[in-house]
């Protein structure tokens, strides 16, 4: 399952940054600062691979997804799709690449136009690419619906006639319509009920098998990310702090933030209730991130150097990188499944 970096990656992100200007002054007409939403991010995604991207609100994970698709323009950095830099492409050239890169959004209620019939919703990417509506595209729409587990008759219905899980299937049908190679799943299962979420996760995995898709799976639910991903990257305040094959990351997290994040997951069984080291404090503002390591204000191991010098990602083992000055001195955390808390488990 570990990704071999040997073939050309489907996606390579190199030094990616996005700074959103902040307006101030009486008429909000002056730029008074910048939110450094994404800062110097490097990632690769291999063909057929799922890269999980996790982090808390405001860490920049969704912005990374949108930058890769160029739904928003990067401040700096390169985005290679199968080796071609798309960061500088003009809109016309971008259209051809867009066919191969799609997105599934979080909210199946707001991401489908309520006034369009399902047929037109899922074929819209093809219309944009120049397809003409007709019996041929209708058959295509019916086939797409079957692929995602909806009846063919759904083409003539409107989004409000469907439940949340069914709407997410429609969103997925739209994403696979132009036969893409790469899909950004931006919190694609987060809004769904547990029993429906499992259906959609399985559907995404089936489609990946069938069409050889690569996914960037952005989510805050660490259990879902572990289930679906091959490798996982952890972001904190705009930076990737750790990246590793999923088993490595969940079994031996090395960055103090990754360790804290995993320790925050509720126990999967009452027998595993335990006292854990909690992160204290809250996320600092992305407007004024702390100098040095951005995690230093909440890190139990922080020292003077962490407050002045930005740590670089260092390779710890094959495919495992973390950005921490004192990575070799961070003790290993208790295993996720281990050490029940004394006497309180029922």
């Amino acid at each position, binding site marked *: 399952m570990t990704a071999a970096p040997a073939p050309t990656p489907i996606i390579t992100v190199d030094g990616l940054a996005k700074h959103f200007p902040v307006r101030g002054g009486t008429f909000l007409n002056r730029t008074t600062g910048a939110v450094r939403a994404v800062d110097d991010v490097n990632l690769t995604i291999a063909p057929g691979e799922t890269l999980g991207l996790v982090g808390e609100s405001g860490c920049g994970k969704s912005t990374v997804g949108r930058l890769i698709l160029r739904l928003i323009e990067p401040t700096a950095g390169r985005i290679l799709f199968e080796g071609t830099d798309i960061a500088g492409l003009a809109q016309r050239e971008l259209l051809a690449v867009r066919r191969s890169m799609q997105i599934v959004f979080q909210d199946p209620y707001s991401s489908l136009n309520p006034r369009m019939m399902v047929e037109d919703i899922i074929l819209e990417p093809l219309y944009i690419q120049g397809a003409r509506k007709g019996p041929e595209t209708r058959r295509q729409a019916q086939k797409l619906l079957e692929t995602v587990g909806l009846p063919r008759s759904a083409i003539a219905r409107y989004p409000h006639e469907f439940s949340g899980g069914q709407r997410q299937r429609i969103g997925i049908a739209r994403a696979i319509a132009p036969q893409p190679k790469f899909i950004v799943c931006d919190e694609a299962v987060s809004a769904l*009920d547990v029993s429906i979420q499992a*259906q959609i996760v399985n559907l995404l995995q089936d489609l990946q098998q069938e069409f050889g898709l690569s996914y960037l799976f952005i989510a805050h639910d660490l259990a*879902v990310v572990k289930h679906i991903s091959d490798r996982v990257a952890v972001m904190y305040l705009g930076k990737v702090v750790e990246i590793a094959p999923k088993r490595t990351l969940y079994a031996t997290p090395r960055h103090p933030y990754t360790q804290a994040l995993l320790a925050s997951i509720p126990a999967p069984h009452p027998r595993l209730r335990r006292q854990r080291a909690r992160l204290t404090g809250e996320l600092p503002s992305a407007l004024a991130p702390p100098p040095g390591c951005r995690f230093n204000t909440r890190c139990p191991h922080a020292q003077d150097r962490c407050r002045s010098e930005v740590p670089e990602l260092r390779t710890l083992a094959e495919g495992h990188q973390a950005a921490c000055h004192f990575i070799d001195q961070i003790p290993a955390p208790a295993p996720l499944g281990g050490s029940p808390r004394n006497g309180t488990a029922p």
Partner: protein
Amino acid sequence: MAAPLLSVRNLRTVFGTGGGGIVAVDDVSFDVAPREVVGIVGESGSGKSVTALSIMGLLPQPQGRIAAGAILFEGRDLLQMPPRERRALRGGAMGMVFQEPMTSLNPVFTIGDQIVETIRQHERMGTRAARARAVDMLGRVGIAAPARRLDDYPHQLSGGMRQRVMIAMALACSPRLLLADEPTTALDVTIQAQLLDLLRDLQAEFGMAIVLITHNMGVIAEFADRVLVMYAGRMAEEAPVGRIFDAPKHPYTIGLLASTPDIVEDNVRLRTIPGTLPNLADLPPGCRFAPRCTRAIEACGAGQPPMRDFAADHRAACIRADMDAAP
């Protein structure tokens, strides 16, 4: 069990009027003992939040009404109580924390004003003493420099801080029962963990009972003593938390646990519950889970399955659940 603090009996809550009303909660009965933590878990439309709103007397008016049943708090039926007495209990002996702290705090008053108002609503106390109590409460829920924070407006606080303020407000009058409806759902996982720890510490300190409503089996595993599983407005299963995880009886509970990705074990494929959640306006006859249940037989469509006893404290509403064999 000691005399229950809260006893819900055959609760039926209906939305809308006339024959076309939607039954959001149907024949729900459970007890909460003093100092006990009862978790109510379910998906959208299960009736878990409406159950909480029914207990608190906060159903949206005029659409929502309690059509049948009794809700006994310390032996007295809340539904027969004059509105004045019920108001006195609400925010006093019965506190509540909601999911969205931004919508439950008033944006135009400082958090100090709001906590002081709550305290003085329930206790004869001067403004100065109430402010002192508010500062004390904010400190106990882990807010740094509480005296200074008192004059902040809700928008000046983060989501996690606002939820701490909500908890401080709910606990300011030493409730004997705290209803918490998805108190950590809108929060990031590190903040969620902090708040669950805080609630556990406060429960030990104040000794109140908690009814915790959530869709998250992990939160249940972390926090509940006893669990109520709801589906489409009815109770599916009720048991101590260990038995819910080790020996679930209802096929829905079993399916819900199997659908949850496991953070410890590696599983290749998630087991799912087929189909979609039912529409409360168009429910199947008989067992509401039957259309999605792999074990359903014809008899399941005949009538509502009654709650059956499987062990002390363990009940499930399924005619197919095996009495002895493990699932």
